[in-house]
């Protein structure tokens, strides 16, 4: 009897072991919740976004190549007017232009911060870029509206709203992001690379250009892709300055629109389940897929260029 009781007691899990199991499960379930949210987002938006094609019978070709966006009405040739090309082109244009303008500035600043004047970099530029990464996008949009748009209007004519203003705003928005990530990747280049290069008689510039930047290229590319992802997904700041006309952009100063600007401006004015609404969800799906692609690019670059120490 006594033995049996003892055996039972010994076989039973101790309180600590049960506690341990509880903690393990608790933390795991928090993680699984995040997992479920990510899956939920992808599934929800994919279902809603695909219903344009499968329930409303819009062909992929009409959606991705059509240039007339006015869901619910028909184009002159009799098709549904759900051509998303103007928005897709708008989104890519502002993203690529902003990245092209930002990159030289960002790399130059990052090189200055790490190679030329690290002290001043750490004291002034570092805190300022950190603050700017945190400035809300509506504030950028507001400054764009009150500074950039009038500037563009006075310099290039037109209304001032358009791709060019969007590019300017995004340029300033993604600059701090690219700078701080480039700084990290430049700092990851081992010191002896620089010492070896200088010891061979290379000038400072040759060292920077031929050694440091080459070694940090994957990291810099990642930084640029991150900046582009941010620009592509940015909604309000762009929406405030781009003019919101769902037309193919003919030049850089005529009103245009991006995926995000149409989404934010239109979602409130449509009825759930209607074609107008479904078409907007398809735009959201395009946005989601692009965000996944940017992620894939970052992974790809990271895997190829991880710094082996």
């Amino acid at each position: 009897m006594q033995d049996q009781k003892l055996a039972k007691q010994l076989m039973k899990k101790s309180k600590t072991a049960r506690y341990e199991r509880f903690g393990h499960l608790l933390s795991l379930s928090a993680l699984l919740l995040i997992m479920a949210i990510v899956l939920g987002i992808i599934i929800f938006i994919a279902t809603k976004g695909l219903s344009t094609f499968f329930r409303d019978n819009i062909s992929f070709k009409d959606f991705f190549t059509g240039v007339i966006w006015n869901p619910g009405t028909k184009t002159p040739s009799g098709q549904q007017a759900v051509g998303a090309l103007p928005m897709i082109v708008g989104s890519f244009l502002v993203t690529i232009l902003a990245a092209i303008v930002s990159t030289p500035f960002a790399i130059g600043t990052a090189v200055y911060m790490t190679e030329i004047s690290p002290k001043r970099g750490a004291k002034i530029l570092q805190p300022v870029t950190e603050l700017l990464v945190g400035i809300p996008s509506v504030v950028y949009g507001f400054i764009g509206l009150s500074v950039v748009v009038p500037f563009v209007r006075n310099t290039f004519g037109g209304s001032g709203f358009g791709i060019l203003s969007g590019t300017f705003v995004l340029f300033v928005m993604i600059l701090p992001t690219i700078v701080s990530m480039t700084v990290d990747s430049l700092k990851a280049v081992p010191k002896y690379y620089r010492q070896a290069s200088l010891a061979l008689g290379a000038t400072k510039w040759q060292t920077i250009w031929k050694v440091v930047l080459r070694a940090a290229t994957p990291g810099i590319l990642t930084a640029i892709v991150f900046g582009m992802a941010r620009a592509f997904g940015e909604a309000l700041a762009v929406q405030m300055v781009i003019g919101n006309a769902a037309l193919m952009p003919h030049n850089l100063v005529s009103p245009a629109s991006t995926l995000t600007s149409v989404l934010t401006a239109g979602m409130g004015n449509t009825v759930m389940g209607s074609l107008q609404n479904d078409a907007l969800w398809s735009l959201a799906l395009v946005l989601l897929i692009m965000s996944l692609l940017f992620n894939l690019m970052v992974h790809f670059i990271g895997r190829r260029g991880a710094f082996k120490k």
Partner: protein
Amino acid sequence: MNRTQKQSQIAILLLRLIAALVVLILAFLIGYIFITGLPNVSWKFLTSPAKAFTAGGGIGVQLFNSIYLLILAMIISLPIALGASIYLSEYAKDNWFTSMIRTAIEILSSLPSVVVGLFGFLLFVVQFNYGFSIISGALTLTIFNLPLLTRNIEESLASVSDDQRQGGLGLGLSKYETIVHIVVPAALPGIISGVILCSGRVFGEAAALIYTAGQSAPALNFGDWNPFNIDSPLSPLRPAETLAVHIWKINSEGIMPDLTQVSSGSAAVLVLAILIFNLSARYIGRKIFEKMTSMN
């Protein structure tokens, strides 16, 4: 001086110019926000309700909404992020499951906030029928906040020295007890600064809130703190336009005559709040660290 040296000097001069230009742009930005904004900020501006058609409106309700949403979102997201980061830094093995989860978190953190907002709209506003409300907004902000907060907390847990863990285990504590009583307290300064930094991001977020917390700020009765009354400030089911949404909203369709003043004042308040968040994250992190290390 030979050619390459000259080239080097010119290139470095160019780099200095670029850096100076960037500093100039950044200084202009911050200067512009504060110089045009701060003169419009007064106690009355911060406390009185907004006016739709006439001048002289404030941002009182919006400011309260922003703070209330931030607190709610943090209360919901902190335990989840803490649990997830404990698992990632203490329990997770290096296998496909872990790397899949890390990828999922990365995806979530890189999703455009408007997509997160639309998901919140679908799930909370439409599916759960919460409508445009504080609770929809807080839950959406939680999703928006989770990946970054998890990563921040995980980093601070990972920076706790392994000696601490071994000490706990050596005393006969279970792994979980070691985490709760030793690792988390040791990582507290990092966790707190992570929370504050994330707060700054949540505070300024607008795109995720337009279609979840809504774009209207009904007048509140600040004498009634019963959360079940619809005009009580605490009511979770009322629509709540935040400060960031307010700036967007009045600039896209506002018709009040002092629109520029109100928006620049709001922008200055928003940036000032973020600045305070950033500085206090550093300061509090350092203070707690000093206090905790001097105790031992």
